[in-house]
C-alpha cells in the first residue's frame, strides 16, 4: 500500500493521459477535460492548504523566537490579511464588510501595491543586466569573446543609433537571430525534449520515483 500502489496509480494515469492524445472520440476528449480542468486542479487546491501552513509556520516561528527582524514577518501577515479582507470584504456581513470593501478596494490594492511592487522587482533587471555585462563580459577565451561580441552587436542593432551608424546592422542582427541563434536553440530543444520524454517514461514505469520523497 505504501510503495507499490502509488506506482500503480502513476503508471495508470500516465498511460491513460498518453493514450487519450491519440483518440479523438468524445469519450476520450471528455476524460481529458475532466482530468485537466477539474480533477488535477481540485487536487492542487489541497496542496495549497499545505503551502499556506508552511508559510504561516515559517513566519510564526520567527515572531515567536523574536528572531532578528521578526517585525517583518508581522508585516507579511498584515499583507495577507489586507488582501483577504479586500477580496472577501463584500462577504462579511454588516457595516464592517461595507467599510472594508469601500476603503480597501481589491483593485486599488492590486493596482497601487501589488502591481507596482511586481513591476519594480522586475525592473531591477535593468540594473543587474548592466552590471552582469560589465563584470562578466571579458574576452577571456574564444567562447567568451564570441558571447560578448554577439551580445554587443545585437544590442546596437536594436536601437536607432545602431542603424544610423551602419544601415545594414539591423539586417545582420536579424540574420544572427534567424540562423546561428536558432540552430543552437533547436539543438538544445531536441536534447531537452528527449530528456524530458525519457524522464516522463521513467516516471510511468516507476524507475524514477524520487518525486515520491525517497522510499
Amino acid at each position: 500500500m505504501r510503495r507499490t500502489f502509488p506506482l500503480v496509480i502513476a503508471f495508470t494515469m500516465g498511460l491513460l493521459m498518453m493514450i487519450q492524445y491519440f483518440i479523438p472520440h468524445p469519450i476520450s476528449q471528455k476524460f481529458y477535460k475532466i482530468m485537466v480542468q477539474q480533477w488535477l486542479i481540485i487536487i492542487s487546491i489541497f496542496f495549497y492548504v499545505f503551502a499556506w501552513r508552511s508559510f504561516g509556520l515559517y513566519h510564526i516561528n520567527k515572531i515567536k523566537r523574536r528572531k532578528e527582524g521578526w517585525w517583518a514577518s508581522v508585516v507579511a501577515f498584515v499583507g495577507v490579511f489586507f488582501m483577504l479582507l479586500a477580496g472577501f470584504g463584500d462577504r462579511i456581513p454588516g457595516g464592517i464588510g461595507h467599510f472594508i470593501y469601500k476603503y480597501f478596494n481589491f483593485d486599488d490594492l492590486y493596482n497601487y501595491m501589488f502591481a507596482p511592487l511586481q513591476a519594480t522587482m522586475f525592473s531591477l533587471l535593468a540594473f543587474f543586466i548592466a552590471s552582469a555585462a560589465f563584470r562578466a563580459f571579458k574576452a577571456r577565451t574564444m567562447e567568451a569573446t564570441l558571447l560578448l561580441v554577439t551580445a554587443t552587436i545585437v544590442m546596437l542593432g536594436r536601437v536607432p543609433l545602431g542603424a544610423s551608424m551602419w544601415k545594414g546592422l539591423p539586417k545582420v542582427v536579424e540574420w544572427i537571430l534567424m540562423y546561428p541563434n536558432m540552430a543552437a536553440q533547436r539543438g538544445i530543444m531536441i536534447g531537452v525534449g528527449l530528456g524530458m520524454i525519457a524522464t516522463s517514461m521513467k516516471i510511468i514505469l516507476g524507475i524514477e520515483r524520487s518525486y515520491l520523497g525517497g522510499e
Partner: protein
Amino acid sequence: MGFWDRFLKIDRRWVFLVVWIAVVIPLLKPLGLPTHITPPVKKLYDYIDRMEGEDKAVFLSFDFDPSTMPELLPMGVAIIRHCFAKKIPIIVYGGLYPQFVGMAKMAIDMAKTDFPDIVYGKDYVFLGYVPGLSLVILSIGESIQGTFGNDYFGNRLDTLPLTMHVDNYEKIGIVVDLSGSSIPASWVAYAYQRYGCRIGCGTTAVSAAQYYPYLQTGQFVGMLGGLKGAAEYEELLERNGIPTGRRTATIGMDAQSVVHLLIILLIILGNIGYFYVRRRERRA
C-alpha cells in the same frame, strides 16, 4: 594598484548609479534623437490610414497585463489616437483574460482627452471580458453581438450604432493584437486563416524576434516591436499632424538608446582594463 585595477574592482553600485542617471536625464531633458521608421511599422500605419472613409472598423485587442505595460500601452494609445483623428470606427477589446481589461481602459482614457468630439457608441465601443479564449476569436467570426451581448459598460451591443453595423469580421478591416505572449498567433490561426480577416500585431522586444516569420509570410499586415515600434508609430502620428499627447514611447526611446550605449561602453572599458592588467601581469 593602478587605475584599471581599481576600475575593474569597482563597486557595482556605481554601475547602478550610472544606469539610473542614464535613464533619468534623457527623461528630464529629451535629446530628441531622430526616430527612423521601419517597414513593419509603416505598413501597419498605412493599412489603418487607408481605412479612412471606408465602411470598416479597426478591432484593437489588449492582451497584456501590467508587467509588459511600458512597452505595449503606448502602442494601444497611439493606434486609438490614429483612429479617433481619422474617424475610423474602432472597437477596443479588453482582452482574452480578465486581468487585461484595465490596460484597455487606461489606453482609452489617455487617448480620449485630445478628441472632444468623439462619441461613444458611434466612433468607438469598449468590449469587456468573456470567457472562452480562442473560442472568442472564432465566435467573433459568427457574431460580435452574439459573443459579447453587452459592452463593458453594460449597454446592449445591438443598441449602439457601431456594433449594430459591425457584427463580424466582414466589417472589420483589421484586428490589431497587443501582446507579449503567443496570443497573436491564435488570432492568425483563427481570425485570418479561417475568416480571412487581416491581423496586425504589437509585441514586446523579447517576442518580436519570434514573430518575424509571420511578417514575412504576410500573416501579419505589420508589426510594432517593443518600445521602439511604439515610438515609430507616435512619430508617424506626429508627421501627419495627429495630436500625440505625451509621447511616452518616444521619450523612453531616448533613454533606451543612452542606456544601450552605456552598457556597450561599460563592456568595452571593462575589456580594455582586463587586457591592460593581464598584459602587465604577464610582463611581471
